[in-house]
């Protein structure tokens, strides 16, 4: 790395401001103004539209195995989603998934 201290701090501060503006965007500008129903209908699906897509490549092509699908991690992933779906409890799903991973890595 050949950046000077000034350049490094420029990157940090610009990235900090830019990231904040992305996160603030709609929350800051729209505030308490009412949004049209069709917009709200789409926004209702934001979490379920992004989190599964974010995690899917990490599950199917885990970095720890160099990107090769791994039965232990796949079964832990399935168990985590199923427990979360059945119990609606995030903590139970994390613990159940971790336990499944430990068990599967020991068995397989």
């Amino acid at each position: 790395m050949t950046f000077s201290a000034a350049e490094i701090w420029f990157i940090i501060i610009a990235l900090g401001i830019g990231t904040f503006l992305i996160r603030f965007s709609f929350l800051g500008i729209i505030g308490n103004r009412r949004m049209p129903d069709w917009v709200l209908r789409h926004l209702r699906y934001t979490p379920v539209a992004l989190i599964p897509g974010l995690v899917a490549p990490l599950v199917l092509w885990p970095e720890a195995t160099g990107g090769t699908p791994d039965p232990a991690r796949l079964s832990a992933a399935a168990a985590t989603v199923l427990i979360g779906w059945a119990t609606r409890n995030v903590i139970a799903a994390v613990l159940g998934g971790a336990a499944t991973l430990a068990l599967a890595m020991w068995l397989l």
Partner: protein
Amino acid sequence: MSTSTIKSVFWKGCRDGAPFILVAAPFSLLFGVVGTEAGLNIAEIMGFSVLVIAGAAQFAALHLMIQDAPTLVILATSLAVNLRMAMYSASLVPHLGQASLRRRALVAYFNFDQSYAMAIIEYERNPERPVTEKFFYFLGVVTPVAGAWYAFSLIGAVLGESIPTDIGLDFALPITFLALIGPMLKSVAHLAAALTSVIVALALGGLPYGAGLLIAGLAAMVVGAETERRMT
């Protein structure tokens, strides 16, 4: 609003946020260690973790800095990685839009994957909660996660190369994300959106700068909303 109600939603948030320490701690420790190895000093590492506070973007920036990429490329790439958070921001408007500007700014600063997903699950379970309670719940969720993020970045930066970077917790991050998905699957429309998200994200996994995820997210939102409209 009584102080005891605020305290109780804040603590509920802390309890719900606590499991994500499992993600924040190793991830930020790793950032501190890798940053030190790359030549950043403690102040610069903490500058990243406090001012940017976004794991994937910090690693993207660090990776490009190690390769001596042009500053503009570093900024554009790392910010592109964060673009999904604009969608989180929009999705929080119906719940937190009525909060004061200062509170919305504070939420925005702490609006990352885990805090957003945990809070939105709680808001959809109890949509009638007053905005003040929703705000303090959010603060509760971020307290353990952000606390661990700052603390372990510092530990990683101070201890540096004496910490092995292979901590064997590679799957903690996927598991906590996966744990958030189950409670989100509330209807056929939600399931359709989730499946669309997975399929499109995997199909477009080769696109640079996380563009595949943004397209997957938009496609899945349309599928979810359309399924809902046709079924009601």
